[in-house]
């Protein structure tokens, strides 16, 4: 609960405080009874820990606790973290729990981020996962109203949506959450400094003119949406702004085909905005399994979103009545109240002083780190979106937690990027873990593919054209499930448990031996009996499976 920072779910701040307090105490004491013996064992079993961990870590918990063989320089903090988002807060709290003295700096709170605004909680809590999901909940209702008609519910008047109520309630929740995060830091004994952090030297951070010295510096400043520079781009909004508009768009153009684009398309469509999505390619969600891309595109279109494929934005024009037109390589679409760019995010690495201390950046400005999240400067580390590895909250949490362990628990820990599940909160949503079919074929050659494409029970009653699609990709040689994908109601919730199974390297036979939970959608994943195709590196044999699929329920 309170221990999973990414999931703020408590209602009353008082209760949250209580729980946070209770839990951080218990996790702290647990940490101690669990970790101390490990600490001792580690030293006694391996006289030269350097042989085990490739980078050389100085794991003294406090500078003053060094054993005297080398003179300890005094630092203000063992760890100074720049950026109090998911990764930074996690690393700071855990480091403090391991006994380190920790400070974290963060920009003042604002719903829209900039060089001078941010807020404790970071993208996930203030401008990402959380507000996005709250808007998804709100927008999903219009579909539920339609569904409910098929279940006997009636509305005298068509339900209308009031944008201001939603945004006010959403912002109240964000304020509550940023407060919770601050408390969490405080209760863990982390010093929070409001202001812009900048690196002065490998052991010094400047926050608005004041210098702090630290044995280790962690950069966890995240990323920010990026709007390409085309004529009229000043009229465009990004996802930060889209989450906090003063009024609901009447007609919106969303440029981009990634998860942010399809999520916002679903949100605005559900709230009865006319939505046009402009994508460069033929399909949305590049990088996802091809069949999932096809399926989700189809389902989204059925809900009334209009796609403009293979269109590149060239200019935004503002007409005299204030409406916007989007000019692309194929033509111009008029009458938009808003044009939103969801064309990617970039790491927030400007003006951090990184170049001056020699921290290496990649071409797109991301901080280059090794497997332990260490930069080219040994005392400087980086986690989360700023490193552009896998840009997901739980991954930043994993990296932050692993770093705290590495630095302060004498347990060098590499984050493990295998089988990281993820979700797209489009409508219907997607959940996935492991490899796409294309990746699996590249890596393993011979794979068996199982799919199910069905009309859920709810849709048979509602009469709506909703369907669900599920897919398993299995290694022909080892029977291991390499990838699991779903698009349909509840997909993100459904996939989590399967992610445990995929991560644990379980086989198709293991899936088959599991009894279904009836009646659910999820049970389809354990009742897939016949592959739809067996891909072999030489030939590919196809097999129609429709009849078998129809029988799967019996």
């Amino acid at each position: 609960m309170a221990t999973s920072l990414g999931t703020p779910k408590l209602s009353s701040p008082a209760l949250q405080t209580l729980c946070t307090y209770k839990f951080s105490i218990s996790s702290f004491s647990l940490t101690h009874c669990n970790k101390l013996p490990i600490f001792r064992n580690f030293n006694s079993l391996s006289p030269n820990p350097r042989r085990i961990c490739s980078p050389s870590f100085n794991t003294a918990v406090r500078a003053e606790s060094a054993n005297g063989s080398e003179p300890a320089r005094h630092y203000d903090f063992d760890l100074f973290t720049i950026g109090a988002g998911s990764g930074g807060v996690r690393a700071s709290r855990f480091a403090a729990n391991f006994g380190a003295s920790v400070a974290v700096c963060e920009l003042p709170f604002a719903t829209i981020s900039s060089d001078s605004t941010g807020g404790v909680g970071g993208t996930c809590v203030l401008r990402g996962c959380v507000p996005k999901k709250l808007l998804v909940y709100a927008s999903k209702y219009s579909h539920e109203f339609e569904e409910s008609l098929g279940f006997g519910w009636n509305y005298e008047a068509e339900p209308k949506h009031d944008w201001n109520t939603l945004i006010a309630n959403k912002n109240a929740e964000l304020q509550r959450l940023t407060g919770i995060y601050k408390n969490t830091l405080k209760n863990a004994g982390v010093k929070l400094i409001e202001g812009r952090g900048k690196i002065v030297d490998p052991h010094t951070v400047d926050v608005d003119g004041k210098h702090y010295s630290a044995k280790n510096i962690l950069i966890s400043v995240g990323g920010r949406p990026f709007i390409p520079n085309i004529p009229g781009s000043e009229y465009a909004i990004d996802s930060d702004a889209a989450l906090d508009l003063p009024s609901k768009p009447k007609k919106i153009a969303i440029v981009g085909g990634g998860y942010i684009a399809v999520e916002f398309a679903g949100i605005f469509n559900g709230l009865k905005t006319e939505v046009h999505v402009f994508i460069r390619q033929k399909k949305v969600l590049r990088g996802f399994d091809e069949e999932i891309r096809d399926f989700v595109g189809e389902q989204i279109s059925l809900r009334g979103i209009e796609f403009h494929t293979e269109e590149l934005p060239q200019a935004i024009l503002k007409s005299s009545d204030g409406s916007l037109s989007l000019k692309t390589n194929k033509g111009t679409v008029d009458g938009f109240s808003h044009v939103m760019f969801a064309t990617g995010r970039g790491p927030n690495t400007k003006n951090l002083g990184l170049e001056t201390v020699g921290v290496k950046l990649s071409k797109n400005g991301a901080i280059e780190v090794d497997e332990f999240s260490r930069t080219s400067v040994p005392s400087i580390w980086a986690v989360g979106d700023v490193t552009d590895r896998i840009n997901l909250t739980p991954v930043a949490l994993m990296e932050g937690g692993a770093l705290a362990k590495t630095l302060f628990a004498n347990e060098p820990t590499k984050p493990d990027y295998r089988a990281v599940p993820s979700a797209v909160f489009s409508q219907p949503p997607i959940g996935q873990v492991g490899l796409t079919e294309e990746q699996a074929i590249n890596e393993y050659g011979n794979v068996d593919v199982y799919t199910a494409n069905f009309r859920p029970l709810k849709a048979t009653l509602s009469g709506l054209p909703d369907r669900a699609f599920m897919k398993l990709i299995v290694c022909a040689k080892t029977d291991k499930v390499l990838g699991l994908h779903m698009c349909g109601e509840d997909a993100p919730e459904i996939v989590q448990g399967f992610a445990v199974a995929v991560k644990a390297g379980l086989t198709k036979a293991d899936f088959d031996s599991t009894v279904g939970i009836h009646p659910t959608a999820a049970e389809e994943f354990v009742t897939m009996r016949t592959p739809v195709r067996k891909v072999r590196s030489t030939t590919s044999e196809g097999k129609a499976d429709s009849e078998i699929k129809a029988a799967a329920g019996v």
Partner: protein
Amino acid sequence: MARKMLIDGEKGNPNGEEAHYDFDLFVIGAGSGGVRASRFSAQYGAKVGICELPFHPVSSEVIGGVGGTCVIRGCVPKKILVYGASFGPELQDARSFGWELNERLDFDWKKLLHKKTEEILRLNGIYKRLLANSGVKLFEGEGKVVGPNEVEVTQLDGTKIGYSAKHILIATGSRAQRLPIPGQELAITSDEALSLEELPKRAVVLGAGYIAVEFASIWRGMGATVDLFYRKELPLRGFDDEMRAVVARNLEGRGINLHPNTNLTELVRTEDGIKVRTDHGEELMADVVLFATGRAPNTKRLNLEAVGVELDKIGAVKVDEYSQTNVPSIWAIGDATNRMNLTPVALMEGGYFAKTVFGGEPTKPDHTNIPSAVFCIPPLSVVGLSEEQATEQANGDVLVFTSTFNPMKNTISGRQEKTFMKLVVDSETDKVLGASMCGPDAPEIMQGIAIALKCGATKAQFDSTVGIHPSAAEEFVTLRSVTRRIAAGKPKTNL
């Protein structure tokens, strides 16, 4: 009597050594288990006949229908009503998300009932086609066993036809029971509850099992006043005690009046409805009284004793691990055997029966780590051991990890209802012995967790899995702090 009928296309016995039978397999009862066993046996090349009573939403000794309890009087219609009922509170919650709705929302029970009946008729048709497509011969009528290799089907017009079969499979399922109290005839069972003409305004539910809490939730969601009576302190005996308490709290939170430790003693018909008396001397009026007081195997009219098939005390067919009865040619699966009365278990038993008898691969169904769900609102889902079972069975200490949280949706809707999750871990092996959850989407979430448990996943493997954010399910992989440690052999105090 057991005259042999020749069936079209019947093959003669090629080697002439074995006795000649009309069928390799004759199945009595075309519910989940029977249909699965028939189809799979046919796919292995067996010649299969199956009989089932004529279709009707409410079952009796003489009516039933292809599809069985699950499709006609159980899982499917129940889930449809749960969907219907869930919209009630859902729509209330919509207001905080900015939706402007009428003060009172109108719900048309008859419309839902009609659509439900349409849907189960459609499924009934699909099941019949499935049987036909796999070459299984379907007979409508009541089946009886008249010899180790003889069945008799009483057709709708009363004529009886006998068939011989190398193997007979009993898959007749079970039926709801009534409590023998004065006025019991005024009460209904779950069969009727799924097909009521009118939505009750005042409903009384007696029982503590999953059927009781599901119907209480359904009627409450549709706006009825619901009173739930049960004998124990908590509903859902057999489930994890802590989960039982959570369910009770949620039912109450959703406005159901709970009456623990209470029995009904008498039902009296009055002008104003049914007067219900309890053993605490209370009286209340109801439009509908539902007895959800258990189900019993449908074995009475099968003539099993006459051919020597052993039954247990409650009338369940006794079988070995391969579903074989003490009469070697007679087998039984599903609720009729009262092992674990769940559709997917009957499917498993039916499939393994076919594999054993006709696939040349003797296979025992494995009844461990079978997940299940209770579709109360919000639902409960579990797999593996309860905390109490784990404490009893584990060698070492048991570690209990729990999480109580306000689901994100409630942060806006203001609904005061916590989701609760629990993992029970063996401290010696680190194996996760049990998982449970009560909250929205629990049954969907639990399915994947069930694979992990089935395959002996450890807590470390759960921990090494990255979460899907923001979801409720991610809590299962982020439970870091032990809530309590229970020393081996010391069960915690009873609730």
